[in-house]
């Protein structure tokens, strides 16, 4: 253990002069609770626009069944939450988590002047801008800018992917995308890259090339760091062998290590169900359900469920009425699901969507998603949400 750390410092010191791992966590033997404050967030992006109405189903609303004669999910099939609401039948694990008080559902989340283009709407969710603004940095990225001044590694936010999302790109600091720590940048040319890096010396006054070298150095040293951390306390729990299952397994292993990561980011999709929605959503929800269920169980066994907050979002919900192809088209407001052992509010924390009051067939949003971001930043990550979101948004009470 000590040797490993030392080895890491040696590799790292090639990169930048100052080189101490911020020690957020001490190494814990399995099962020991970490002190408060060492909290992590797992952001789960449901790409493509998940149909929120068939996720949290208004099982006693005639308007719902009228708008969806084929796609509406019968009350008897839904997993009952309250008299008025049920979960999609594939989400059995979510139902268990709900029963145990680990799930909060926030309905009617959106933003003013909603955009129905996937890319643009995702942009708005990633940057946390208004619909009329075009920002080039993401909200998690700006969290890194604010929190990570002087950090020597971009491992405070990790995306489990090959390509980094706009969400994780700050002005000065960017998160790191890693799909599989074992495979990271181990390319045929890796040794060459390391030698090129070793032979580079910064010159006076920051040149653009120094920025590239800095990124390269951080990448290579982070790659080692993440790989070693992922092997420190690898989870031995069983996860489904799916993309999301493997990603959450990696995340769990990293959570049990003493890596400095505060935000994990992972996407699953595509939920863009214009045609034959039933099968596609069922398939995706099964993957989602099995992976999240395994993750939560794992966290509980290791005593870390209270320290981790997982939440889902999607760039938009879908229209209330089904279309002619047994699918649904792009809509507006949607729900967000929050999962943690440390929730202050549980279950349905606000009212179900009002299907009698629509805007040209679309749900009206009641809660701006930026309120949820502000809450997570302030209350979970203890960060300066106003500086990061560039505006003061009211906090919600679920944490």
């Amino acid at each position, binding site marked *: 253990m000590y040797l490993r750390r030392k080895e890491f410092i040696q590799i790292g010191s090639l990169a930048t002069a100052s080189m101490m791992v911020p020690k957020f966590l001490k190494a814990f033997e399995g099962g020991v609770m970490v002190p408060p404050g060492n909290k992590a967030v797992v952001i789960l992006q449901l790409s493509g626009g998940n149909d929120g109405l068939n996720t949290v189903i208004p099982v006693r609303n005639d308007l719902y069944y009228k708008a969806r004669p084929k796609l509406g999910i019968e009350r008897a099939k839904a997993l009952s939450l309250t008299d008025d609401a049920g979960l999609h039948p594939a989400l059995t694990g979510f139902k268990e988590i709900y029963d145990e008080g680990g799930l909060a559902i926030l309905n009617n989340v959106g933003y003013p002047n909603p955009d129905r283009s996937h890319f643009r709407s995702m942009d708005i969710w990633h940057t946390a801008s208004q619909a009329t603004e075009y920002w080039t940095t993401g909200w998690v990225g700006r969290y890194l800018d604010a929190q990570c001044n002087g950090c020597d590694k971009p491992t405070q936010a990790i995306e489990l992917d090959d390509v980094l999302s706009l969400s994780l790109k700050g002005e000065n600091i960017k998160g790191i995308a890693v799909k599989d720590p074992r495979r990271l940048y181990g390319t045929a040319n890796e040794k060459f890259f390391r030698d090129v890096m070793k032979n580079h010396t910064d010159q006076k006054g920051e040149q*653009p090339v120094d920025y590239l070298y800095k990124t390269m150095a951080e990448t290579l040293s982070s790659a080692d760091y993440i790989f070693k951390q992922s092997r420190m306390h690898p989870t031995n729990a069983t996860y489904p062998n799916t993309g999301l299952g493997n990603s959450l397994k990696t995340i769990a292993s990293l959570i049990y290590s003493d890596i400095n990561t505060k935000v994990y980011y992972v996407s699953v999709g595509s939920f863009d169900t214009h045609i034959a929605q039933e099968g596609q959503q069922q398939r995706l929800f099964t993957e989602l359900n099995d992976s999240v269920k395994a993750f939560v169980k794992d966290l509980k066994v290791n005593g870390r469920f209270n320290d981790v907050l997982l939440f889902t979002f999607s760039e938009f919900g879908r229209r209330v009425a089904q279309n002619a192809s047994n699918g649904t088209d792009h809509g507006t407001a949607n729900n967000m699901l929050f999962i943690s052992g440390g929730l202050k509010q549980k279950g349905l924390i606000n009212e179900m969507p009002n299907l009698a009051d629509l805007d040209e067939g679309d749900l009206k949003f009641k809660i701006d998603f930026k309120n949820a971001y502000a809450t997570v930043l302030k209350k979970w990550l203890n960060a300066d949400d106003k500086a990061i979101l560039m505006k003061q948004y009211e906090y919600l009470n679920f944490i």
Partner: protein
Amino acid sequence: MSLSNQLKNQHLMWRAGFGPAVEQLPDLTEYTPKQFYKALVKASDKKPDYIDVADDYLKGLVMGIEEAGRQQKKELPQEDRKKIQQKNREGIRNLNMYWMHEMVNSATQLREKMAFFWHGHFACRNLNVFYQQGLLDVIRRNALGNFGTLLKEVSRSAAMLNFLNNQQNRKDHPNENFAREVMELFTMGRGNYTEHDIKEAARAFTGWGANLKGEFIFRRFQHDFGSKTILGRTGNFDGGEVLDILLEQKQTANYITQKIYKFFVNDKPDADKINWLADRVYRNNYEISKLLEDIFTSDWFYDERNIGALIKSPVELLVGIQRMLPMKLENEEALMLLQRILGQLLFYPPNVAGWPGGKTWIDSSSLMMRLRIPMMINDADEMNVRPKDDDDAMMGRTDDGMMNESKKQGSKQNAKEYAGMRRQQINADVDWKLYVKHFESVPREKLGEAISKNLLQVKSRLSMDVIKQYADQTGRENFIKTATMQIMSTPEYQLC
């Protein structure tokens, strides 16, 4: 210390074009930058051909819809709609490849480079290939012409009117999106007009739309003929007059000039230079070629601090490599895939503000991917990275096999599934003849340095020992090839 003509000419070629081509290598030392620029202008003189990639099937279908529309309002069967979507997607892919091919091979470098700038300035996502090729034609035809004409033609294009929701902008139900972006992004820039100006301008654009063929139409009954007050002027303006009012604003010249300066010269703006240029732009009635001449024939453009100061965009990087190393790609999809992974897929800008550029191109994964490209071309590395899905473009499908499987011997076991995606090779066939010949009189011990001078715009602090150590020493030709690939795999090569 004065800089060599070679370095200055390479600088010019990277900025006013997509980098020097292998055929130009001997010319780089032969001429002055002024002579070089003159030749570039001359080569871009002629009007570009219309790029038409839409296939007959799609054309037939669109005609069919029109016919059906005339007879009665009838919706197209779902199967046809699906087919249209798929054909459009393929069409836009072909448009992308065709245009990139022009960037690589055409002598009209200045025109294509300027069109590439406008492609980001008038950024437009539209899944209709007719509309997209129409807009590209507007941009390529007017790239070096008059900005006012370009602005007006873009504003009347089906692609932009649809993308910015002007089809929904009606007298009794105005939609401000189009007017807002025209003012914020295409002409004046944020903070130089009021919300009231936008509301009034939106009224002037009511009734502007396009038909299925992509032709501009004015819907008289949707137009608001009333009086409007915009930027202090009052009258019964229509859209064209609003554009004229915007062009009359000196701020429009300032905004456009600043953006062009940052794109072509240095992303750290120099206020004095920009003001000087903008004054001239305004006085010259927005003649783009005059602005470019002012920039590329000035002494300050060739200042050391402007050379190698920009980070190549993904398209510039990919095109630049192919200009220096002419290659046949068995697997052309690789170019699409690389554009996606590196964050610049032509015809799919992130939003109407275009690609932000500069440092935003670089993060840990995109940088490492860039550094691996030369080795992929060499088939010494494989593409095992999966781009993010683009739901706008894919309409709920998952990525279908983007790339062909490697056809190399023994690659079967290498073609392992990785996260649902096969590892694949680019299968490029590089024609090295001309390139290798260029270095024939260079003594062996000076080869590394000579190659690096041709490829890099920043003084390399890269030790030649490292390059030599990794290059193939078994023969002169092998050394040239492998050293070239290694130098292209460095951070220095990302700059121009």
